[in-house]
């Protein structure tokens, strides 16, 4: 009579559903793609913001920073808010009674975020290349590792906040964190442009570590061991905390 689809099909279905939810709303597209694209063009093409560069094209510093910012917007800010309101509306409770279950829901959530990030990297990377960005190809594997670790850390942090706090509190907090980190978190601009001790602190936070790792890997082809270590530590701690405290309903 009743039989579930295979686990892979269920997770894929949820991935598709989550990705559509993330990209299907205008405010999400604005946060995930339009604002980062604007930041990319303005920072790279004008002198509106003093980057204090020793030399080299502005786009080589700006492109990795904007990609880091876009990843933060999707996997942390959007995901936190969406999960918190779904939880309040009982969506997680209902899905927990379908064949998807909690495990499939988690898989689909991470999958949806990854799909959106592929779109973000393709669109923003494409614009940056058109603006003359010349990333160091040897650094691409390290950059991908940084993106995956950062996504794990941000998504786990998103679930931790959404699964423990009230939806309205989450809405305010997620936006506040995004603005503070975007402005002073060594995401868009290199950490050494900030005064001490802000620079050191920012590089130890996941958003700053992602920005630094991407700039280092794609700018010089170096393997940013320290920044990847910071990201891995955050991913581990946040995952354990989410596993411990997250409540589906």
């Amino acid at each position, binding site marked *: 009579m*009743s*039989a579930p689809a295979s686990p892979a099909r269920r997770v894929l279905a949820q991935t598709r559903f989550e990705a559509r939810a993330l990209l299907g709303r205008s405010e999400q597209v604005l946060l995930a793609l339009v604002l980062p694209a604007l930041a990319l063009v303005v920072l790279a093409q004008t002198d509106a913001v003093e980057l204090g560069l020793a030399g080299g094209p502005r786009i080589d510093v700006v492109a990795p920073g904007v990609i880091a910012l876009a990843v933060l917007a999707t996997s942390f800010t959007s995901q936190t808010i969406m999960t918190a309101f779904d939880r309040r509306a009982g969506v997680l409770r209902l899905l927990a*009674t379908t064949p998807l279950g909690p495990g499939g829901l988690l898989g689909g959530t991470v999958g949806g975020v990854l799909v959106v990030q592929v779109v973000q990297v393709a669109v923003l990377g494409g614009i940056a290349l058109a603006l003359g960005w010349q990333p160091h190809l040897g650094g691409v594997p390290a950059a991908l590792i940084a993106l995956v670790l950062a996504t794990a850390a941000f998504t786990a942090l998103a679930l931790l906040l959404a699964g423990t706090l009230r939806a309205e509190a989450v809405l305010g907090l997620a936006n506040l964190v995004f603005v503070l980190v975007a402005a002073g978190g060594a995401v868009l601009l290199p950490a050494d442009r900030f005064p001490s001790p802000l620079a050191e602190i920012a590089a130890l936070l996941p958003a700053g570590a992602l920005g630094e790792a991407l700039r280092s890997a794609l700018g010089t082809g170096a393997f940013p061991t320290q920044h990847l270590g910071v990201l891995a530590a955050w991913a581990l701690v946040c995952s354990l905390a989410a596993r411990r405290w997250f409540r589906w309903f």
Partner: protein
Amino acid sequence: MPETAVDIRALRKAYGATTAVDGLDLRAAAGEVTAVLGPNGAGKTTTLECLVGLREADAGTVRTLGLDPVREAAALRPRIGVMLQDGGLPLGARAGSVLRHIASLYREPRPVTDLVERLALADFLRTSVRHLSGGQRQRLALAVALVGRPELVLLDEPSAGMDPQSRRVVWDLVTELRGEGVAVLLTTHLMDEAEALADRVVVVDHGRAVARGTVAELTSSTGVVRLTVPGGLDAGALSRELGVPVRTSAPGQYVVEASGSPGLVTAVASACAAQNAQITSLDVGRRTLEDVFLDLTGRHLR
């Protein structure tokens, strides 16, 4: 004896100092509609949540389709269809995409077009859930509960917020499910819903079952005489005159709690004549489920 779909014994569940379910026994069989009838706060929703594994019992045993709903959740989930009281539908998504998405979680779902037709969803498939009316959301939630061809359907207050037409559609569908051998367990505080649908009724109050049986069994114990006196009458005086309880069910509506023998009807009529009270209708009949329910659960508001 039909196959047991739900078997709850001595279930206890407390939230802090508040005991929601306090030693409840409940069984529901395949091919039957079982209504859990009770006032708000009686523990109906908590019971249902324990049945589907959303909450774990503090004490007692819960078996859903023979499985432990917490430890054997993965095996249970594909075989049940659940409609929660708050709907639980993602607010930002379109109605049609929600239904198709849930359908895609099953190997051989019920055809979505079939449910769209039966529950009249076609007009709002492209509307986001946020903008649906209460009745539309409930119909969509029911479609979501049924799309996986469940063996057991659990409905928490299924016709809350529905207009009479929607309710009729839902009732017809529930009756059809029973005919297909599906076990249906629904919670309600609507007497007419329980009377219209249920093979068996379990009246729940303060977290325990206070009565159970078929609607006929629960309502057949004594008869009543119902009368309408738009100008009102002195119910206390009437009760003393007749020597049986008389209650006011609504302004101008009275229920004499005794079987309507010719002698009693005559006595009621002459008592009203003595009070100069004009009767516009007088009905001799069985107690309704509502009479039973109010007797068992009391008349104060919660």
